[in-house]
């Protein structure tokens, strides 16, 4: 299994995606201490060249949070948001304080970083629970730039083994305000094997 993944491998990744993103939204709701309605996530295997089209096009400005993972499983995980969602979430977190309309100030940037951190960490907590493996997440790194430029980071990492990525679109409503984000999961090849065998496949 060096370069060819079959449908069963992808089905397993998809299921992990479902569980992980559900956990992530639950954690966010706890942090916000608000009622959060979650919609069924959209889990897809997308060719990297098409990923940007899901987030508004290759040149659209998006917020990307990246966490690198070490431990039993290594790789990178990203949480992406469109600018509208990022602004809406910042507004909720800042709880009535005045917020920036176009770009973000320092406090808003760290709020975004923390939102991304919670989403990614809780995703990995559920993955750790499923596989009984340990993960050590890095601090969250933030970048706001063109979708393609941000996506080049996981695309390159994944590009060594596959032209497809596990892409999870998660949407939820906080006090009737619809927001959403996207997980991109990129385990490296040996880690993917570890995940599969921990789940009893192969």
């Amino acid at each position, binding site marked *: 299994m060096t370069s060819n993944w079959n449908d069963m491998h992808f089905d397993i990744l998809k299921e992990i995606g479902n569980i992980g993103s559900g956990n992530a939204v639950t954690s966010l709701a706890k942090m916000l201490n608000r009622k959060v309605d979650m919609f069924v996530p959209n889990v897809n295997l997308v060719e990297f060249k098409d990923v940007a089209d899901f987030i508004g096009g290759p040149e659209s*400005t998006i917020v990307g949070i*990246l966490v690198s993972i070490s431990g039993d499983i290594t790789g990178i995980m990203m949480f992406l948001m469109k600018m509208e969602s990022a602004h809406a979430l910042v507004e909720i977190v800042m709880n009535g304080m005045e917020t920036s309309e176009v770009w973000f100030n320092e406090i808003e940037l760290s709020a975004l970083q923390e939102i991304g951190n919670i989403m990614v960490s809780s995703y990995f907590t559920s993955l750790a629970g499923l596989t009984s493996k340990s993960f050590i997440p890095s601090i969250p790194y933030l970048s706001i730039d063109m979708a393609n*430029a941000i996506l080049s980071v996981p695309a390159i990492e994944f590009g060594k083994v596959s032209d497809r990525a596990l892409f999870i679109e998660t949407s939820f409503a906080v006090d009737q305000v619809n927001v959403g984000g996207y997980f991109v999961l990129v385990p490296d090849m040996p880690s993917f094997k570890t995940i599969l065998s921990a789940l009893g496949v192969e």
Partner: protein
Amino acid sequence: MAGNMIIVGMADLNVTKSPGALTTLGLGSCVGIALYDPHSKIAGLAHIMLPDSTQIANRSNLAKFADTAMKKMIDDMVRIGARKEAMKAKIAGGAQMFAFNSTNDNMRIGDRNVEATLKLLRQYNIPLLAKETGADFGRTVELYAEDGRFLIKTIGHGNRVL
């Protein structure tokens, strides 16, 4: 944007003649390699993701790697009338999008893509006229076959012509 602008995707390449133009959107750690023959006014643009195809098992897409993309692009340009000896190069991209403080080689992929590209240009003896690489932001580029003009657009870091 001109009507005859050809979009080059990620891990993709294309060539065109004047008055055509080529663009690739949102280069991050990837590198955009622009080749241009001023005599025949033929241009080629590649959006490479990785420095070296020989390190990778899955290498079916030639445009994904600096080495195989460069060779294919030169061949494709020659096929429509360009001369390798006349070709000039401009490159952009190779950013580090996230501020890792990491010694992990994988995370320095932008630098490695740029280094590999420069090395290949020396091997093929193609002079580098200009480059805008590194830093931590994305770049969209446009290459005009009419005069080899290489336009770089960014979000929040200005636009310029190389």
